[in-house]
């Protein structure tokens, strides 16, 4: 591959969080706080139909009765939900008709993020949806995809253009009652991405969404809904960044994937929300619910590279409902300084001959805490279910922690479940070996870490894999102790 040795060296010079800029775009904000009025305000702003407002209000009523979960192995000051702005949209008079209409400042923001859409369109053939704060700003390649019957647009647009699809599938995999943050999201979500691949269609390009929190004091609550109809295939990428701010900002997203009979969805995330500074000040609270539903012979594959956020609470899961369906989870989670991550997956085996694979690689540096939490559940009708889990932890310093919480619930005696786990410390011997061959310490760490994560990185689409490698190196710069 076009390996990035030189590029990597260049990037390492600029090792601080490089997406910490703020874009000066006027925004249209709701007042701080959360009440029924705010929800009605959001819904009205987005010109939503009655049923969706009802959905939100119902979720809000439920949320008010719920308490924030405390079982995760993370410690943080709970957000003050009345001190958050729930709607902030880049001010715009009309929806952009074409790329040329997009605000130049916004284009610059995207260019800084490395997603100049003109470039993307010309070179890579990746269709991108860009969500800044609460609103989807631009979606590329829409017309080309439309020829195949593929719908790829912002969530709000989908509500207007394809209400029957949204109404049919929204909340079916992650119900509003699922958990505290999912309920909150269901009440106040502002935008996100929607994707529908019709029966038998193989999406010819990677679909990609970039999420960006720009405004201070705002929360980002997006929803993503991906539906692959019978026999369809799609590979979906998600990238996230946010400015450097001293305050903690809340990101509570919901992602639902639905793979109907014989369909396949690959969902890849490179999460690089601002992690806070070296003293642990600021950073994003990333409380995300991601789940996919597999019907007969369907397959859902989650791949995530998590390097950002002050606190991460995230368990991309698969409900293997249909017979012969397959769920996969490949994860690299890096924590440095005072970051905390509690992440993993749930594989729920309902159908017969269902298979799941979990490969989790945790890397802890600085004073960070990194936990894998996973559940493999085999229901009583899931004959011949199989699971293989591998959870590895790599420690970079003496002050960090790695924890593994694997849960297995099995109600069918024909199941086969395997679990492997290792914990290792990055070896001074390994580094010395590299140095003795003339390799610098930074490159040595990057080599060793990338080698350790290889099984996961190999699952990512090419461009993403290169980006992920660089991110890993940057996140861990100078962290061996």
């Amino acid at each position, binding site marked *: 591959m076009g*390996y990035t*040795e*030189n590029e990597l060296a260049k990037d390492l010079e600029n090792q601080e969080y490089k997406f910490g800029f703020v874009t000066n775009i006027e925004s249209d904000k709701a007042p701080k706080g959360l009440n029924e009025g705010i929800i009605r305000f959001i819904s009205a702003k987005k010109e939503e139909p009655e049923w969706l407002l009802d959905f939100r209000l119902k979720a809000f009523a439920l949320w008010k009765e719920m308490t924030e979960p405390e079982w995760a192995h993370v410690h943080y000051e709970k957000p003050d939900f009345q001190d958050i702005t729930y709607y902030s949209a880049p001010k715009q008079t009309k929806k952009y008709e074409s790329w040329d209409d997009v605000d130049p400042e916004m284009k610059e923001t995207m260019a800084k993020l490395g997603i100049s859409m003109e470039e993307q369109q010309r070179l890579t053939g990746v269709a991108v949806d860009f969500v800044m704060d609460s609103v989807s700003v631009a979606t590329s390649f829409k017309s080309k995809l439309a020829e195949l019957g593929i719908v790829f647009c912002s969530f709000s647009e989908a509500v207007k253009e394809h209400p029957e699809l949204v109404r049919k599938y929204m909340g079916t995999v992650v119900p509003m009652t699922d958990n505290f943050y999912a309920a909150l999201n269901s009440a106040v979500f502002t935008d996100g991405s929607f994707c529908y691949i019709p029966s038998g269609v193989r999406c010819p390009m990677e679909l990609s969404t970039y999420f960006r929190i720009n405004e201070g004091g705002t929360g980002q609550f997006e929803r993503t809904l991906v539906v692959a109809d019978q026999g369809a295939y799609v590979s979906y990428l998600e990238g996230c960044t946010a400015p450097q701010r001293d305050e903690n900002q809340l990101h509570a997203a919901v992602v639902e994937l639905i793979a109907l009979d014989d369909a396949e969805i690959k969902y890849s995330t490179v999460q690089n929300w601002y992690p806070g500074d070296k003293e642990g000040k600021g950073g994003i609270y990333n409380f995300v619910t991601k789940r996919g539903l597999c019907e007969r012979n369907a397959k859902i594959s989650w791949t995530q590279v998590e390097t950002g956020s002050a606190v991460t609470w995230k368990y991309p899961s698969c409900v293997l409902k249909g017979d012969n369906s397959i769920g996969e989870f490949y994860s690299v989670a890096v924590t440095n300084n005072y970051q905390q991550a509690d992440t993993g997956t749930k594989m729920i085996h309902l159908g017969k001959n269902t298979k799941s694979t979990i490969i989790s690689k945790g890397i802890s540096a600085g004073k960070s805490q990194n936990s894998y939490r996973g559940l493999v559940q085999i229901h009583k009708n899931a004959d011949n279910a199989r699971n293989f889990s591998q959870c590895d932890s790599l420690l970079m310093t003496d002050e960090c922690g790695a924890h593994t919480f694997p849960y297995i619930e099995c109600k069918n005696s024909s199941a086969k479940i395997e679990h492997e786990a290792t914990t290792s410390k990055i*070896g001074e*011997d*390994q580094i*010395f*070996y*590299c*140095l*003795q*061959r*003339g*390799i*610098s*310490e930074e*490159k040595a760490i990057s*080599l*060793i870490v*990338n*080698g*350790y*994560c*290889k*099984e996961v990185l190999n699952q990512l689409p090419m461009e993403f894999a290169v980006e992920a490698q660089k991110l890993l190196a940057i996140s861990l710069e100078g962290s061996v102790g």
Partner: protein
Amino acid sequence: MITIKNLHASIDGKEILKGLNLEVPAGQVHAIMGPNGAGKSTLASVLAGREDYEVTDGTVDFDGVDLLELSTEDRAREGMFLAFQYPVEIPGVSNVNFLRTALNEIREYKGQEAISAKDFMAMVREKSAIVELDAKLASRAVNEGFSGGEKKRNEIFQMAMLEPKLAILDETDSGLDIDALRIVANGVNKLRSEKNATIVITHYQRLLDYIVPDVVHVLYNGRIVKSGPKELALELEEKGYDWIKAEQEAK
């Protein structure tokens, strides 16, 4: 090639090297022998720049540069190569990727351009033949799942790829059966030239049957106490180290 004068080094406050002198000219192979705990591996580690050791006195001139002033990686880039007694495994990192990274770092240090993928692969084929290393091993992860013999052969393969000025073989013969020993020794011999030098650290005379040294040194109690032609190794094999110890104590 290398001139070591009055080298003192300690680890955790304990002095291991106590005024070591050694000179190895270009084009020569010197063997260092000695009883356990004499400081043989310490010498290799200190020269390579392992941070656990503290150099308290002495100088090391490496082909005109002050070796002790250089970082570990710069010593390697200047042409110092250590064949490890216990080669380290780096899971998931292919041998070729590892070596290409190393080679390009060395080339960059010397102001040379990075090697093209094509030239690199040609070089891998050529050099792996020197130690009869299966080309498949070149694409496997560094030393992962290698047998003891394969690890040692891989060290010599790396040495062939990086073309050092000075190679230090730290007990490369340990754990090798006779066939592997022959292959490793042949590899080292093929790499000998007028422009490079080799230091062979070993316990056993056996290796020196295959890699014939110009000079044999005896390291005892942190110093080179005796030097002689290759026959000295035979004498040591026969008589052991007690007579050396007695000689030293008499002084």
